[in-house]
């Protein structure tokens, strides 16, 4: 039992110090009927590293890693190249095995990272302030809506049909239990929607996503101004944070709150988690924010230092009146995000974003040239929707058999709907050969379907 340092002799001498006969005596407050007589049944006994590696290695081997084949999956999780430096640094024990920095004198490392992270997120989103992270983009989105409810003292959110349906579902789940109204618009894969028409004097916020779940990019400046004129806030959701390296940021469009997924920077796909929720707001709303905030101050010697601050918003102080019940956030994923963004820098982030866009344009053109395939997007960043002449789910299965992960069928996100639509994401990791292989395989699969 390699994780347990006590020896039998230690245990005996400690029991003597406690004046207890056995360890079992220490469990005497447990009702007798609930005390197990020995190790729990139905589970194996302890194993060495080698055995654990074999077992878990066998499970891992049953999966098809996205990096092993041409992969074009997106829809809220993106495969980007993560520099080796990132994973090396996040595994430093001083970051990995530290707790939340409640003791600032021995946590300046984590605190300075958070301060820098908050600044990076504020710069990328074009907002005034950002917090120290949330669980993921979807929970950020739901928290943004609840924050808008608090600020406006209204209880209705209008959710764009372009909002990722999982984000929509997390928000409507909260709406049901927390007690607010969430009006979800139907998905609009090809066109716009009139959100403003729905805004009334009960509306706390309108939630849009940019680029939206179908890949469309839009300028929401007019919507922001119109919402604010009616006393409502504009929440902008971003699921592909790299798009912030190229597109006009939500802050410049007038967004009041930005809720985003930061996985694209520094974090692997991990089958969906852990990821890192980004949350940024206008200055005037800071005290209504959920989550931890790190602030600059000085120490007893007058030297610059950092502390967690404005904690009276949080559950450990305000309890049932807290702005959110969140405690643990995504600290280490935020660190990975921050290191990756630091490595990229201004020049790197611009170029990486341009590279993603350019490759997506190339791929869109290649797919649009496949007979029967129609591109639905005028404007997009690194992801777009194509219409296929047969159900996308079957096509994707067929592509997987040819060892190509050819995008996400829209019906996976909207069961029973839009079965002919396919979402395709392209990143810097996709080579010319990947793109050719995808287009060729799709041509073949669709061609096989056309009667002779």
């Amino acid at each position, binding site marked *: 039992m390699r994780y347990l340092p006590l020896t039998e002799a230690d245990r005996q001498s400690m029991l003597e110090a406690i004046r207890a006969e056995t360890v079992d005596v220490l469990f005497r407050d447990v009702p007798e009927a609930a005390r197990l007589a020995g190790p729990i049944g139905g589970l194996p006994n302890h194993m060495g590293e080698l055995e654990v590696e074999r077992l878990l290695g066998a499970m891992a081997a049953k999966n098809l890693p996205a990096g092993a084949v041409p992969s074009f999956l997106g829809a809220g999780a993106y495969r980007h190249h993560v520099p080796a430096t990132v994973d090396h640094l996040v595994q430093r024990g001083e970051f990995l095995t530290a707790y939340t920095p409640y003791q600032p004198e021995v946590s300046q490392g984590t605190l300075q990272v958070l301060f820098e992270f908050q600044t990076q997120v504020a710069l990328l989103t074009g907002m005034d302030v950002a917090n120290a992270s949330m669980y993921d983009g979807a929970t950020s989105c739901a928290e943004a809506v609840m924050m808008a409810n608090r600020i406006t003292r209204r209880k209705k959110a209008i959710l764009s049909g372009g909002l990722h349906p999982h984000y929509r579902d997390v928000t409507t789940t909260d709406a049901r239990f927390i007690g607010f109204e969430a009006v979800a618009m139907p998905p609009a894969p090809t066109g716009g929607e009139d959100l403003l028409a729905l805004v009334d004097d009960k509306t706390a916020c309108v939630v849009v996503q940019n680029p939206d779940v179908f890949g469309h990019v839009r300028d929401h400046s007019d919507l922001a101004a119109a919402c604010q004129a009616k006393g409502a806030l504009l929440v902008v959701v971003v699921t592909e944070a790299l798009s912030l390296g190229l597109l006009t940021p939500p802050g410049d469009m007038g967004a009041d709150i930005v809720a985003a997924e930061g996985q694209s920077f520094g974090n692997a796909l991990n089958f969906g988690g852990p990821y890192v929720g980004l949350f940024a707001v206008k200055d005037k709303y800071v005290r209504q924010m959920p989550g931890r905030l790190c602030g600059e101050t000085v120490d007893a010697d007058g030297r610059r230092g950092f502390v967690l601050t404005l904690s009276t918003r949080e559950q450990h102080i305000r309890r049932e009146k807290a702005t959110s019940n969140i405690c643990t956030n995504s600290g280490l994923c935020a660190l990975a995000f921050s290191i990756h963004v630091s490595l*990229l820098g201004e020049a790197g982030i611009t170029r990486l974003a341009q590279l993603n866009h350019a490759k997506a344009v190339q791929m869109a053109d290649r797919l649009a040239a496949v007979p029967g395939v129609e591109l639905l997007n005028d404007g997009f960043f690194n992801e777009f929707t194509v219409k296929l002449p047969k159900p996308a789910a079957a096509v994707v299965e067929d592509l997987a058999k040819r060892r190509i992960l050819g995008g996400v069928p829209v019906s996976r996100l909207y069961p029973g709907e839009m079965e002919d639509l396919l979402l395709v994401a392209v990143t810097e990791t996709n080579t010319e050969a990947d793109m050719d292989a995808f287009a060729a395989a799709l041509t073949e699969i669709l061609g096989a379907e056309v009667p002779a």
Partner: protein
Amino acid sequence: MSMNNQGRPSAIPAASAGFDGVTGTVTGNRGLQIEEPLIFEQDSAGRTGVDLPEVPKVASRLGAVKPRAGVGLPGLAEPQVVRHYTRLSQKNYAIDSGFYPLGSCTMKHNPRLNEKMARLPGFSDVHPLQPVSTVQGALELMDQLAYWLKTLTGMAAVTLAPAAGAHGEMCGIMAIRAAHEARGDKARTKILVPESAHGTNPATAAACGYAVDAIPATADGRVDLEALKAKLGPDVAGLMLTNPNTCGLFERDIIAIAEAVHAAGAYFYCDGANFNAIVGRVRPADLGIDVMHINLHKTFSTPHGGGGPGSGPVVFADSLAPYIPVPYVTHGTDGFALVENAGDGPAFGRMKAFHGQMGMFVRALSYMLSHGADGLWQASSDAVLNANYVMARLQDVMTASFEGPCMHECLFDDRFLKGTGVTTLDMAKALIDEGFHPMTMYFPLVVHGALLIEPTETESKASLDQFVDALRALAERAKSGDAAYFQAAPRLTPRRRLDETAAARKPVLRWTPPVAKEAVAAE
């Protein structure tokens, strides 16, 4: 209110020309403690830490959106970035470097095997929306983890979706509400929460639209059963109780508590934050619990990472098993299947964008397999033994709040400091100079100036002895009337006490470019 004497800025000592007034060195560095500016203060335009290929020349297709002019990020080369974060890391205390007895946080050893397993490409490089046929191993891992959690708790069902403990609480309370609503019972508007609860419990109940009613504790630090019974009624939806509780004590009356809650038609939610005390030795189902979250980042040693990520699976008894969120893994005809949409079933909704914290699942299962049933039995035994040993060795110089035995953590209050001028906070800061992370302070709220010590099973006796000896000596020193020593602590850290009042009065929450700062000043 003793938390408010933290900020005590003092004048900077006069320095010799060119030398730092605090450290006496030219650079302000102090040997291995190296000062590190903000990353934004190390910018050189055009410099980068990545090499990217040429961007293909294509006409951009951004629709109506304009490309942005710039972001404002600094440019650094790779070696600078490595050094920046390495130096920052060296300003942190961590389990890897020392004893971290934070009560209620379970800061135990984080095995590196778990890190290695989580990084296998078959787990880390898998997209959540890949065809299910290409992720059978990932679903098998989730299924295995679910099996372990159900077996260890004796419960009927589990959801892996919640991202952390508080998120699990939310999930559990939503399930309770969904179950009441499914029966058409909408009269239940209250959740009972003991005074000693974690702040997340009342915050969660309130977030789910319930009124929170506090239950007092008895003199022996446990829920007052009679007071509880008096509050139970047709308006109570459930009870949220931490067990072992936040005083480190097992709720002796727990079975009677569960029976009373059930008799009132309410559900029993257990905050599983302290599961480490009993894992492998006691099954929560045998205590009458209906629903409980499990902090994988506590009990099952996934790293805390400076504040996250966590993972908060929730186990459910039969009565609540239908009311879980999507997604979940099922055994299909053709291998494992994934139910991703609630459809018309009783699933109450969705908690998170995708399937839960997969990276944490791998680490937790790797930990469980390493320990096995026999190892977990020994681990909880050692966790409880270590806490009782610390309590036994300190109770003559400090004041234990309640009589033992304790479970995995022991609680002291500040009566032993009465009249010394030294507070719980001062004591904690003096421990930092001795090379220890402080215990949890001022929590739980049911005793004055709480000091909650959780050693965990991964500390050796030698490490406990060193900690106890230091704490004993400090307690004696406090009683001898040397308050000034404590009030000036810590002295040996990268930063001394920080001015939290100034930070909260005029919050500075981000770096601002010098030009912008000047422009603001000129207004």
